[in-house]
């Protein structure tokens, strides 16, 4: 019986390379990782948006309409739907003049209970310390 925590830290802009999208889809894949693990073992991903990466969280992304691609917003909602922990850096949002009204914080319309949290960088740094493995995207 072991649990490993993986920190997925998203620092990159959306729709530039594919990195922020891949970070979230990889984190979500933790839902089906059991088939590879022993009974009782598990992987817990934590998603943190920092620096320019907080711009991934802006609401109202029309990627489907214009490019036929799932938006990063939809991926974040999917992450909340499967109860992943999602943290957004407070200082970085403030730096861009963004407030909680501007960003994706829940996926209530899909029935998700889990909410994203806006937290100070110091909280995120604590998570960097705590996780077993750390990955920057």
């Amino acid at each position, binding site marked *: 019986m072991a649990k490993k925590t993986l920190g997925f830290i998203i620092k990159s802009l959306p729709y530039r*390379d594919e990195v922020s999208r891949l970070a979230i889809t990889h984190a979500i894949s933790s839902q089906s990782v059991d088939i590879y693990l022993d009974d009782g073992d598990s992987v817990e991903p934590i998603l943190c948006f920092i620096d320019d990466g907080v711009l991934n969280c802006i609401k109202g992304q029309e990627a489907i309409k214009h490019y036929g691609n799932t938006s990063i917003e939809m991926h974040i909602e999917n992450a909340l739907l499967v109860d992943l922990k999602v943290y957004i850096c407070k200082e970085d949002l403030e730096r861009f003049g963004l407030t909680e009204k501007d960003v994706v914080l829940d996926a209530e319309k899909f029935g998700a209970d889990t909410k994203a949290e806006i937290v100070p960088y110091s909280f995120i740094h604590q998570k960097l310390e705590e996780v077993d493995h750390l990955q920057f995207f």
Partner: protein
Amino acid sequence: MAKLTIGTFSSLIGSLSLDFAVKLSDAALKKGHSVDLWLSGNATTLAKKDQKAFRDYSALQKPVEEMLSTGRFKMTSCEACSEARGIHKKDMIEGVNRQSMDWYLASCFSADRVLLIGGD
């Protein structure tokens, strides 16, 4: 001996990030460690067989095949990322696996060290 899991998103040619991943894997294998290399996004282009080696481009098929032959190196390519690029099972270097993304997370579970090379 320990296990290193490397995840990569970079394309075969250009940034030398995949060259880095391959050379680091090789150095780890030479020291007796085992390595899982996960290819996602544009990195799935590394798994395409029949790469022609030119001096102007990275050509990594040969070192990959040599590492596979050690038995301590696994290279696995993201299935959806490959299909979206028109790279099918039949197009892949022999010995390279295709899995969904959860394979990578499982590999991280049992790894001593994880290095994710983001960006392109």
